[in-house]
């Protein structure tokens, strides 16, 4: 499990490139886009979005990140659960 998580972490670092100032800024921007996606697609993590019909209008402009967002959501949920249960 830990190896899996580490490789997932490496995947993200890899995807975002080595960290120089510009990369850091872009990474921050990207995480904010993820946050927006989390609000719109909150249903996928179990919290209904009563305004989905309205917010879906934003999806075309954010969903280039959809797959990456899904991975990152899964990863962050997994991290949280593992921090509670400990690792197998």
């Amino acid at each position, binding site marked *: 499990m830990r190896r899996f998580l580490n490789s997932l972490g490496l995947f993200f670092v890899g995807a975002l490139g080595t960290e120089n100032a510009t990369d850091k800024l872009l990474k921050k921007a990207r995480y*904010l886009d993820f946050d927006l996606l989390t609000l719109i697609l909150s249903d996928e993590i179990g919290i209904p979005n*009563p*305004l989905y019909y309205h917010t879906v209008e934003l*999806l075309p402009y954010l*969903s280039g990140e*959809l797959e990456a967002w899904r991975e990152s959501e899964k990863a962050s949920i997994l991290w949280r659960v593992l921090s509670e249960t400990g690792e197998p």
Partner: protein
Amino acid sequence: MKPVSLRNYRIFFLSGKGGVGKSTLSTALALALSKRGFKTLLVSLDPAHSLSILLKKGLGGAPREVAPSLSAFEVDLEREMRDYLKKVERDAEKIISPALIEKVKNQIELAYNSPGALELATVDSVYRIVKNYGRGFDKIVFDTAPSGYTVRLMASPDKLLNWVDSLIEMREEALNYRKMAGEEVKEDPVLSILRKRREEYRFLGELFRSDKTLFGVVVNPGELPLKIGERTLKEIEEAGVPVRLILANKFREKGGELFKKPTLYFPPLEKEPLGLTSLEPLVSVFEKYIG
């Protein structure tokens, strides 16, 4: 309690449970207002097209004159939803790579059946109609108000506006980082969509709470129907929207105020009212209260 003076209001919403007489009474109200010389628009948000049946006239998606000073039209909500989501899909097709587009389209299509979709489509229509036709008409009567839940969402816009504001801030911050990183940042569609929604929520919050807007609740006689009516009233008022009128429909005898609200009494008609002239006994009740 002072009797109502209907001329003081510009926008009318009639609420009430299924079959209590919302369509019948909104039509009679619109007719009464138009007879007094107010240029009136009657709008049905009801998917069952009951208005064209009641008026015995075909109605379309644009206002059509049905009597002197009275125009009416029916909103096809399902079509509105389809058109809106189709546009979202077309926007997606312009941007998203072919490899991803199907997944994104599926995600967009979920919106048809998402909780609250029909309700939000309803308030979108109310917003558009009041914006587009508010200037051309003295009075607008909506047959069937948005539900208590929607009224609550829209009538307490502070929460909603704060929420949209934080989304706007998040997006602005992200664009700022991109700019600092040397990317060219152009007109951002996400921001312009969020700002448009913000304006819609602000407008509706104001509209629902305005002292020129009348929310009325239609009730029928009998202990249970009255209980249900009272619940509808409470739902709306708990949302911060005052109910200004009770419309007691199909009452053989006049009574006093119901639920401590100004109350108009409408008699049961001999036969099912169809066509404008058959509504006359109901129209005349409204006419007395136009003032």
